[in-house]
């Protein structure tokens, strides 16, 4: 095996890892926002992403809408869905001391979505193939798939968008304040529900975008989402809670780790290495790799 190993190959693996890792990162940002403000482990994030991928698939096959155009449609639909989910399912659970409840609601939602998708779209993997699906851009001897690159660009744009929203707008500031210290935020007159609704909308909105990026690049099936949620959790732990860029970086690191592990060891073990790193980070650096100030978990 080692005779094939060249710098070019390593670089190719690195780029593939980064491109796929941004998908984990997108999901992790949503999780990070939701966990940071409401302490909900939103395990159904992955299922929502796959649901959005299926909607994108429908828009493409039934209405012939280009996936990148449906980013706008599905992105805004996902924002509304997120707000609706919060109001309908999590509004009451957030206030409760017992965190099992919100976790279980998320699990119930995951069950519901996964199996609903299996009924509607069957359990066979689907993928979207457009005229540009197999085209790639060559730089030197590197091949970069066009759709993966687009996914990466969309992910970066979305991250920048969310960061700007959190930093520049009033409601974004309220969300950040609530995630820092909910009691103090209440004292200065921030209504937690508005902030929570906004957070959920953004988190699900991002999963809409991630869903489109995934549907154009990788085959997906209804049960793909759970693994994806777990990977997003790992990315989140790597990046540290409450940091948008940290979550994205965590996702990229995980993507690169998996890409290298899959090549050097074998495909199946790549998952175990991801979780192994996750456990090590949880044990020795629970505040994440990029957070300087130490906050107790």
């Amino acid at each position: 095996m080692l005779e094939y190993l060249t710098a070019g190959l390593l670089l190719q693996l690195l780029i593939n890892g980064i491109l796929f890792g941004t998908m984990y990162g997108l999901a992790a940002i949503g999780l990070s926002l939701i966990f940071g403000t409401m302490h909900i482990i939103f395990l159904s994030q992955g299922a929502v992403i796959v649901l959005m991928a299926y909607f994108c698939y429908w828009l493409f096959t039934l209405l012939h809408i280009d996936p990148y155009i449906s980013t706008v449609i599905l992105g805004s639909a996902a924002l509304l869905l997120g707000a609706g989910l919060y109001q309908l399912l999590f509004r009451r659970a957030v206030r409760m001391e017992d965190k099992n409840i919100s976790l279980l609601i998320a699990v119930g939602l995951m069950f519901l979505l996964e199996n609903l998708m299996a009924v509607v779209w069957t359990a066979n993997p689907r993928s979207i193939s457009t005229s540009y699906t197999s085209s790639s851009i060559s730089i030197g001897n590197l091949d970069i798939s066009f759709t993966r690159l687009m996914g990466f660009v969309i992910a970066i744009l979305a991250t920048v968008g969310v960061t700007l929203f959190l930093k520049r707008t009033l409601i974004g500031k309220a969300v950040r304040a609530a995630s820092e210290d909910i009691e103090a935020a209440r004292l200065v007159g921030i209504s937690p529900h508005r902030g929570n609704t906004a957070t959920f909308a953004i988190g699900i909105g991002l999963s809409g975008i991630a869903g489109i990026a995934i549907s154009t690049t990788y085959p997906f099936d209804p049960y793909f989402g759970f693994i994806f949620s777990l990977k997003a959790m790992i990315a989140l732990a790597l990046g540290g809670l409450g940091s948008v860029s940290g979550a994205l970086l965590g996702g990229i690191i995980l993507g690169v780790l998996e890409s290298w592990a899959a090549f050097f060891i074998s495909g199946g073990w790549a998952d175990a290495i991801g979780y192994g790193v996750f456990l090590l980070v949880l044990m020795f650096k629970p505040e994440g790799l990029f957070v300087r100030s130490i906050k107790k978990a």
Partner: protein
Amino acid sequence: MRDMRSIIIALLVALFLALVPLVSDSEKSYLIYFLFLTFCHIVLTQGWNLVAGYTGQISLGTHAFFALGAYTTAMIWRADLFKGANYYFDPITMILSGLVPVVFAFAIGIPLLGKLRGDYFALGTLGFGEILKVAFIKGGHFTGGPIGIMLPSSVYTTMRPHYWMALFLAVLATGVVYFMTRSRIGLALVAIREDETAASSSGIHVLKYKVLAFAISAFLFGACGSLYAYYLFQVSPDGFLILRWTLYPVLMCVIGGSGTVIGPILGSFVMTGVFTAANIYFPTVHPVFSGIIIIVVMLFMPNGIVRLWNREAQRG
């Protein structure tokens, strides 16, 4: 006196349930299978209840210990460890299948419980389960890979031993939770759940008690896994290392009322009934239905069935 009375009532109910297979046709009746499954759920739910309901440590690794128990049974049987002994419902095999998960519970419990709090512990145990899954799938001949280990199903004669063993384990698990939580250990566990710092400053060795509860639950999960291996005759990652075996007990415990002895039993009966009925009446959409049930129950009765008519029922 009240304690004595509830113990006697519980034993009478168990005795009554033990007589059911003698009356009902154990091969054709769905009732036997339903009760068997319910008892298995009670074992897992009580185990989870001990760690989460009483000690306050949310573990999402039940399926990992369950699978470890099943794999231990299958491997002992396949390797013929005791040279020609009968492995079908062999007590030594079953106890060993409980002890192997206990070893793992110590190995991962001491670092995880010592270092991680709350949600992080939940995620850590989830990670443990996933690592185990990959290890079993990739284990080659040793674990049988994705297909798992087949056991000689020719020894199967009737459902009765499964039923009685499940009932025994359910009574054992309930008894363990009952007596533990009424002892000094139980007080320590509840103190840890309520306020770890305060418990620690009152001289409770927090880590020791957490690991103890975790290890005892692992034994129950492992023994139950062993029993289920005798039922399925195929121990595979798809049958045992699936999140179902973690989520159902969590759900049943919370629905019944976590941190109580009777809650997990009620929850197991009710939810096994609901899932079984859904499976019979809406076979294709049954998991969708289960998802809706979980959400609705969590929204409208998050404190469990037990606390519905007994508002002031205390935790612990």
